[in-house]
């Protein structure tokens, strides 16, 4: 064991002790992608899993690499969708991965839970289609001739399996809390909204393989959308999320809009319980990095503009020389030759 590994393990141990109450399986994304989860002992060592998830890990070893990939996919997509906002989905090296932003019932937490459950469903489904997971494979219920007249063929994505596994693995933590917790209800709702975002964007992809590429002969399959599309859909749900509060409905508890004038949310909408902080100043204990030093857009009036992103504190301006490729041309045969161009740009950063 190298000294660095020792130090890292020690640090992880310390954080694990303090953060055990707020474990989060998204930490799987931090694992080195070189190693594979292939032994039951590995499950015991994974940070962020609750006991039920450890058991699921042992029973479904072959699926865990997809779960890890799903976690990575979720974080990358979150960071893309929030790249211009004050909170830009930055991650920590400790648990929980996103800090208190996720443990509080904020709108941001709603997005994180939705994109995470979607990431797992997506990655598992893809692993089915690629043959990586032998226990699922393609969706064999899609076959024969469609009502539109084309032949179903190829590998239709087995989204039912991916969704079911995501429900089993991701939701288990919330269900273990019991149905009475408002936060658990919020998380379950948003997890399901994430999976719905994939289901409602399933599409038919086709290939024409008649003579000379004509569509006289065409085969089609059902496919999950690109994950970027799922991210866009959930970001729009985030922008229109509904603030809710717990209320007794009959003999159980449900989440209802805090403002009675708002129409009730649907299964596909995101819901949140707590208002968000402004994310302006650094608060290490909460996992908020603040916006100091962030690059901003001087000419924009939107959230990425300097006025809003810098929270009125002002910004620095600097001239930066960018080196980039330009004038790329393909030469026969076969290489691409580019030139190096220097470009002087103004860069603005928040004070």
């Amino acid at each position, binding site marked *: 064991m190298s000294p660095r590994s020792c130090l890292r393990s020690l640090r992880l141990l310390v954080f694990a002790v303090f953060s055990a109450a707020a474990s989060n399986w998204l930490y799987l994304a931090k694992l080195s992608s070189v190693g594979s989860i292939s032994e039951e002992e590995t499950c015991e060592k994974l940070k962020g899993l609750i006991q039920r998830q450890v058991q699921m890990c042992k029973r479904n070893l072959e699926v865990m690499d997809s779960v890890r990939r799903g976690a990575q996919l979720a974080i990358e997509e979150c960071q893309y969708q929030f790249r211009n906002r004050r909170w830009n989905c930055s991650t920590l090296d400790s648990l929980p991965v996103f800090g208190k932003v996720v443990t509080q019932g904020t709108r941001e937490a709603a997005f994180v839970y939705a994109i995470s459950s979607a990431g797992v469903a997506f990655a598992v489904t*893809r692993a089915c*289609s*690629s*043959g990586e997971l032998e226990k699922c494979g393609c969706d064999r219920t899609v076959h024969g001739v469609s009502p539109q007249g084309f032949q179903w*063929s190829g*590998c239709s994505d087995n989204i039912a399996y991916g969704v079911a596994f995501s429900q089993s693995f991701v939701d288990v933590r919330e269900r273990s809390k019991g149905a009475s917790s408002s936060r658990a209800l919020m998380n379950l709702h948003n997890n399901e909204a994430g999976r719905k975002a994939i289901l409602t964007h399933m599409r038919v*992809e086709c*290939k*024409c*393989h008649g*003579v*000379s*590429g*004509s*569509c006289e*002969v065409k*085969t089609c399959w059902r*496919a999950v959308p*690109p994950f970027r599309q799922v991210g866009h859909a959930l970001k729009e749900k985030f922008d229109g999320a509904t603030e809710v509060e717990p209320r007794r409905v009959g003999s159980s508890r449900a989440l209802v809009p805090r403002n009675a004038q708002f129409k009730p949310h649907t299964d596909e909408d995101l819901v949140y319980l707590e208002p968000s902080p402004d994310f302006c100043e650094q608060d290490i204990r909460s996992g908020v990095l603040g916006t100091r030093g962030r690059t901003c857009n001087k000419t924009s009036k939107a959230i990425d503009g300097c006025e809003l992103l810098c929270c009125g504190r002002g910004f620095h301006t600097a001239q930066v*020389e960018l080196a980039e*490729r*330009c*004038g*790329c*041309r*393909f030469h*026969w*045969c*076969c*290489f*691409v*030759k*580019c*030139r*190096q*161009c*220097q*470009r*002087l740009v103004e860069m603005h950063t928040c004070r």
Partner: protein
Amino acid sequence: MGVGRSARGRGGAASGVLLALAAALLAAGSASEYDYVSFQSDIGSYQSGRFYTKPPQCVDIPVDLRLCHNVGYKKMVLPNLLEHETMAEVKQQASSWVPLLNKNCHMGTQVFLCSLFAPVCLDRPIYPCRWLCEAVRDSCEPVMQFFGFYWPEMLKCDKFPEGDVCIAMTPPNTTEASKPQGTTVCPPCDNELKSEAIIEHLCASEFALRMKIKEVKKENGDKKIVPKKKKPLKLGPIKKKELKRLVLFLKNGADCPCHQLDNLSHNFLIMGRKVKSQYLLTAIHKWDKKNKEFKNFMKRMKNHECPTFQSVFK
């Protein structure tokens, strides 16, 4: 008309160059020395959509990928840029384009088609230039229409780059002149009498017959060919009972010159395909046992097996 189309093609090339220059001029700094995009290095950029089923890899272009095996490079990316995922699928789909190559309708046809069917191994996908696509389409679609084909959706030119880095082979002869189309060209009759080309055409055609011709007349803009005696070499879509009343059409060819039909006293090798309810002629050769190439074809035909691609789509 041909000249007009060529001019448009050249215009496209010129605008590509201008855009490249404009990009260079817009840079505030000065251009420094060239660097090369890496060759055959990590091709992870290809990952998208359905390609996850088979990670992209750089493979040899097989000799029996007739469309592209002599294109000028030896390796290709699989899956290709038309989302063909296996080499069997590439071969099956490419085979129907081989006869078009033999038509020599545009000197860039092979480069254009192979940039998609057998893309070069670079670190990211590079598509053919839009102007090349337009030039090939404008020159070749009239020829394709003689065989009942139209420019397919998968090769629509507006999906290819304009101004961005793209593939085109600069012709050594910049004053390219494509053959005028229409009244002076008759594609099913303008076939090269070479045994290899005839074999490839035989494989690409749906049916083939040895037959004598009773008469040729015009009908609705087509040449209508009425057979006398016929012996099937390859029946394809023709049913036995239809064989008796078979009539062939040279599509859009009412007035085009077909020297093979000048003398109807010979036997002919006829190849074709069925489009809706019409049997279209795709190639005609005089059945000439004295011709060396034709004799060679007859010899090869006896034991030549056309590739079968049935397993591609299960």
